[in-house]
């Protein structure tokens, strides 16, 4: 039995990165790749993936198989205006919904979502909580 935490971040990252044909793609990064040095006017939209809890359940008889549920926080930060923000959030959700099943995982779902716009002035911030489930990673 192994874990799925880091693999699932890579899976989701690859999935999201490659599907932006009609609109300008944002930068997608895992939290450990996030750039911390700011440049002047660096206002590119950013998607940040934070792996959170992984719950492991016994699946087969006598624990011969395991089912893993990994929760991932996907933070969407955009800077331009609400129109662009809405566009990016919708696109991300669409990509995820289109890939509810795929190679390397059993299912991928949006299990919760909330907005963190409320107190920001120059930034739009939306959070999707994703659940990615895998049998015996």
């Amino acid at each position, binding site marked *: 039995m192994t874990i799925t935490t880091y693999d699932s971040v890579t899976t989701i990252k690859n999935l999201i990165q490659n599907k932006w044909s009609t609109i300008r793609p944002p930068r997608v990064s895992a939290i450990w790749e996030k750039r911390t040095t*700011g440049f002047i006017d660096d206002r590119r939209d950013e998607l940040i993936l934070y792996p959170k809890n992984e719950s492991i359940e016994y699946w087969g008889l006598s624990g011969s198989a395991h089912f893993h*549920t990994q929760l991932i926080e996907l933070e969407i930060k955009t800077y331009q205006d609400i129109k662009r923000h809405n566009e990016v959030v919708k696109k991300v959700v669409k990509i995820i919904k289109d890939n509810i099943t795929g190679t390397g995982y059993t299912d991928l779902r949006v299990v919760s979502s909330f907005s963190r716009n409320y107190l920001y002035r120059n930034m739009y911030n939306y959070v999707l909580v994703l659940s990615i489930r895998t049998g015996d990673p």
Partner: protein
Amino acid sequence: MNEFANRLKVIGKRLKQVLKLESAQEQVEDARQFNVVGSVKLNGRVVRVETPEEREDVAKEEGEVTAYFSFPPNVSNVVIPSDLPKRTKSMILSIIQDNDIGKDMDDDVIRNAMTGRIFQGSYGKALPKDDSYDEGWYPAGGKSGKKVNIEAIKFWVEHTKLAGMSDDDIEEEYYQMRETEEFQQFASVDKKIENLLTTMKSKRRNPETTKKLLVDSVAYMVARKLWYAGRKPSSMNDHEWNEHTKYMRPHEGSFGGGDVWKNLPFKYDENYIYRSGEY
């Protein structure tokens, strides 16, 4: 016979209410395992239903039972489907509340700040050790009754808490904070801050002043929370620490230095619910 039937009806209703309370309490307790703070509400009022006896007692009142979880002030439009398993719900709530002890000061910082020294060991992005949060720091300075050195806290805020933030991040953090009621309260405490704020509003944005203001205000609030509510040890969850210390909290204004709650009700009384990483 009629009376018997009526009594049976009442018992049935009450039993139903007990089951509802039990289910809400189970959700709250499951969430506690992920360090989520929540409570059971009956008709919008928080009720204590930890034991079967308490549940029986509370069930005498009819009304809507809910498991209530507070969200940080910047979070809105939360969607959590109701048909998710309890465990998944708890995990989602932990992401939303994000009660992370790693955002609080570690033992070395507090110990040194209590004796007036600036702790430079965690300078930069040093990772905390696994015993960094072993001790419990009680409200009102614990046994010693001492207040922390604010300069030491400022050093920690600047070099550890805000370390690794870009100018943009700092600016967003500052603007986010400026909108909160706590910040307005803080500004009313210190004349210098009020003046600085007015200058900030009238001039163009300046990363240096923004950072200074943010460091000052965060340090003040962090020190104030430590005084009124303490800091839990890593062996306890937020709920346990809250229950353990809620009646030890010192009275309003005891933090000193013009800590007056004029426009806001005093936050850190026994009804305050302790949460890690929040101030």
